[in-house]
């Protein structure tokens, strides 16, 4: 089913990317061309094929449930746009 302009607006909302109204039509055309190659997947026979999520067939390792990292909060927050008292500041979400 071809991608519609409503689909573009819907996925832009899901991805939290603001679109200028003038961007929508050209973006729709480019995404449509991309899906033109992706839609060829549908015709490939994959009956009985197990999906491959990862290059190496190994189980993810588990480590001991122990604290290994020191407190680096101040270091990591130095690159944040807005912090106060060790907290990240965002616009008010609860009135």
């Amino acid at each position, binding site marked *: 089913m071809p991608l519609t302009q409503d689909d573009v607006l819907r996925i832009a909302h899901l*991805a939290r990317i603001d679109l200028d109204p003038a961007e929508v039509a050209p973006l729709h055309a480019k995404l449509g061309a*991309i899906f033109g190659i992706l839609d060829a997947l549908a015709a490939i026979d994959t009956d009985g094929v197990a999906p491959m999520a990862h290059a190496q067939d190994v189980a993810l390792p588990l480590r001991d449930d122990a604290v290994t990292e020191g407190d680096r909060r101040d270091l990591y927050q130095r690159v944040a746009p807005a912090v106060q008292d060790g907290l990240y500041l*965002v616009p008010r979400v609860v009135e």
Partner: protein
Amino acid sequence: MSHATLAAQARALAAREVSSVELTRAALARIERLQPTLNAFVTVDADGALAAAGEADAARVRGDAGALTGVPIAHKDVLMTEGLRTTCGSPMLADFVAPYDAHVVAALKAAGTVLVGKTNMDEFAMGSSNESSHFGPVKNPWDTTRVPGGSSGGSAAAVAARLIAGATGTDTGGSIRQPASLSGVCGLKPTYGVCSRYGLVAFASSLDTPGVFAATAEDCALLLGAMAGHDARDSTSLDRPREDYTRTLREARGAKPLAGLRIGLPREYAGDGIDAEVTACIAAAVRELAALGAPTVDVALPAVKHSVAAYYVIAPAEASSNLSRFDGVRYGHRAARYADLDDMYRRTRAEGFGAEVKRRILVGTYVLSHGYYDAYYLKAQKVRRLIADDFRRAYEACDVIAGPTAPTAAFALGAKSDDPVQMYLNDIFTIAANLTGAPGLSIPCGFTRGGLPVGLQLQAPSFGEARLVDVAHRFQQATDWHRRTPPVIAS
């Protein structure tokens, strides 16, 4: 000395014929002269490099020097460097200074290398031409009206112009091998899991692979040897014994050093869509390999033709998830004006990401969204298995697979920048190794009539890096394509 390989620089340093400060000053001078022409760097750290070079020289005096102590290199700007800005070629991270080093950065620092700067790249490593960088495109040193390839185009161009002897890159769908091919240098993408992804700003986590650029296969092996190794901070890092990837290069084998090695030639790597001059260069390189003793066998990789479609579902899906972290809260750009939290996210991401990154996030969001997951994402993962099965069967009949790295030599700046599908098709020969996790090495193997380099891609089963390096080294002992340098050096 300026054209010396990494191995030659290391030998000269060890023999005290040159100091790291001298090598580093010379590298910085070359960068200063050619940066306006090539735009290979986003950040040059002259003070930091000279301080590190001084420390390297002091370490040598103390007797603390390792194999790479004092050799100047550069890192792709997607690898985090403590205290030195890491931009990923994006407005989102234009002012981001990482609080820690990536594992491979720390490993190469521990090996004594001197970091001269961070190389330019397609934004968030998404591109095959370097034109999506926020800091402007890198120019191909062989023809500055052409692209160097991407996404690690800055590293490729910097090594091609001999600004530095070695550089890191990352390869998610060909982002080391394709620019190596287009820029006329060697580019090695190791097996997934051999180099830690810790501190590599994530694009597609099941495909992202740190690797290296250098003028020779031997130099690639030296750098990889210093970067590889287990790292518990990356859950996909493999715990394997350390390897010397140069271990077979000094074996004397006579006139047929590749005797017994079976070279597989996939029939899918020839024909439509491949430039005739590229085909001719690859055929000549295969004849050279045969002359070195390696018989060729035809192999079939029927599912590889689906690799572009599978990749451009899987990689954007993973990207849409990974790049959701850029929300203007913890790091990176935040929009100056917004109405509420949701509006802040939307404007921050609209302003902070370029057009290609947005397209991939949107494609990924769509293929993971309710009602489409099975048709796209799950289907692509099944096709990924078919491609891996093809290679497994092919390697029953051969040891190494040879073919073109890219379907054409370097194309003109702007030629494909407005056509994402044409850009994606550049990756047709490189993507499969990312889907399977196996290693690939691109080496220079000829030139077009217009003087543009052509790359030969050698592929092997997982953990076959040392074999790839050996084959490439034997080829480079018998040929001089890798010693040719672009005219811009003399300009």
